[in-house]
């Protein structure tokens, strides 16, 4: 077994990198894959909270890198899925505690025990980002339909290309179809026009995400959640399955579309 190393990054903060990692981790584990998530946001760790594993942390990434513990001791097993693990970030240090070479070495040690290693990158383009990017086989770039997030994503794509990583994939998070319809939000097409990379997922804005994040129970467990379904679809696409993109509709969907059809004719 040799794991695919997937780095999730964005440039801009707050667009949903950590949420994406947690949900992809759960989704892939639900597909029966062995998955490890690594939080590289040293000093501002969040992934443990979103995955609901905060109170189980004993050792972290920095302890592993500095040889205070063995890798196996730092890996935390998820409380619901036996094939899902978390390697948490240290909270008391900063990004310089780890180097890109350290990350490559840690991933090399884990490679044979997992199908996927998901790396949660910190925001920014400095050392934390370079640490997260170094071991990546696949880069997923998360953006939201905002000009500022798209601008940062563009910068990140440029840096990813400069690091000679293969073509990154795009995840558009938090899209609101009714706002796109009104012309108040960048559409998927607008974003693709600028970034010109392949898209692997479109995730609708969903209140469930906030609730699930606070509870430490990723939305991907919830079959009724639109965002959860979108993340499970991304996991299937990573597995090479051809999953059509969901038709996103607002709450008054059917009736409104009928009105539109009537107006058009």
């Amino acid at each position, binding site marked *: 077994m040799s794991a695919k190393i997937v780095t999730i990054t964005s440039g801009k903060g707050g667009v949903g990198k950590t949420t994406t990692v947690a949900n992809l981790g759960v989704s892939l584990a639900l597909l029966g894959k062995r998955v490890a998530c690594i939080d590289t946001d040293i000093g501002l760790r969040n992934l443990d909270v979103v995955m609901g594993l905060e109170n189980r942390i004993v050792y972290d990434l920095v302890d592993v890198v500095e040889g205070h513990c063995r890798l196996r001791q730092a890996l935390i097993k998820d409380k619901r899925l036996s094939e899902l693990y978390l390697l948490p970030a240290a909270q008391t240090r900063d990004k310089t505690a780890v180097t890109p070479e350290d990350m490559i070495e840690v991933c090399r040690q884990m490679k044979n025990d997992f199908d996927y290693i998901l790396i949660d990158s910190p925001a920014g383009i400095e050392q934390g980002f370079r640490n997260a990017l170094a071991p990546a086989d696949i880069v997923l770039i998360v953006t939201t339909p905002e000009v500022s997030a798209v601008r940062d994503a*563009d*910068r990140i794509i440029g*840096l990813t*290309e400069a690091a000679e990583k293969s073509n990154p994939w795009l995840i558009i998070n938090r899209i609101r179809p009714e706002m796109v319809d009104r012309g108040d939000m960048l559409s998927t097409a607008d974003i693709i026009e*600028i970034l*010109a990379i392949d898209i692997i997922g479109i995730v609708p804005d969903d209140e469930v995400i906030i609730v699930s994040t606070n509870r430490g129970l990723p939305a991907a467990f919830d079959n009724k959640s639109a965002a959860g379904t979108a993340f499970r679809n991304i996991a299937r696409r990573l597995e090479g399955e051809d999953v059509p993109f969901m038709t996103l509709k607002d709450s008054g969907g059917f009736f409104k579309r009928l009105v539109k059809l009537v107006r058009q004719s």
Partner: protein
Amino acid sequence: MSHANELSIKGTRNGLVINIPDDGEFDYVLEQLETRLKSTAAFFRGGRVALQVGWRSLSSQDIATIGEILDGQGVSLWSVFSQSESTQRAAKELGLEIEAGAVAPGASRRPADLKPSGEKGKSEQAIFVQRTLRSGQKLEHPGHIIVIGDVNPGAEIVAGGNVVVWGKLRGTVHAGALGNDSSVVCALSLFPTQLRIGTHIARSPELRPPKTKSPEMASVQNGEIIAEPWISS
């Protein structure tokens, strides 16, 4: 050009120029240079400078020493202007530019200096780039720049000559950056964040770019940058 006995560093439209006085021990000059750079290091960092050495004769070793001092402060040496032939030869050996006339500080840079008509020299060559320029990426060239691909918002192009973009131009572009107002900018979709030609600056209207648009060419007419649709006749 009169030379004081002091070393001076001037910002010009074409970047920084360090003036090295004709008189004085070379070691003293180096010392001065180092002191000046250190006191203002942050300002120079990442930039490139030209050296103006007047009649002083420098060996390639001397120039290399200066280059090292500059490198140490994160500044790169790209050009040496000199009236001394031996200095010019030395600079050439190191692969530096020696075109004094085009960018000497204070010298007027009339468009005539840079007319593309039959002039030789590196500054009139074009570079050709076939990829998309993304936010944060910058392309600089003393001659013309041709891009096949898009120039995204946040990307920057600075050319001494003309700029042609076979794609969408949405970043910042400066044509005729050495002061040539007769340069032009062409793009299949011309909607730059900011467009500069020579000494003129224009902004795109603050509207979203229209979906379909014909190719356009921007040039300076009567002191203003004008973009006109390109219609082949």
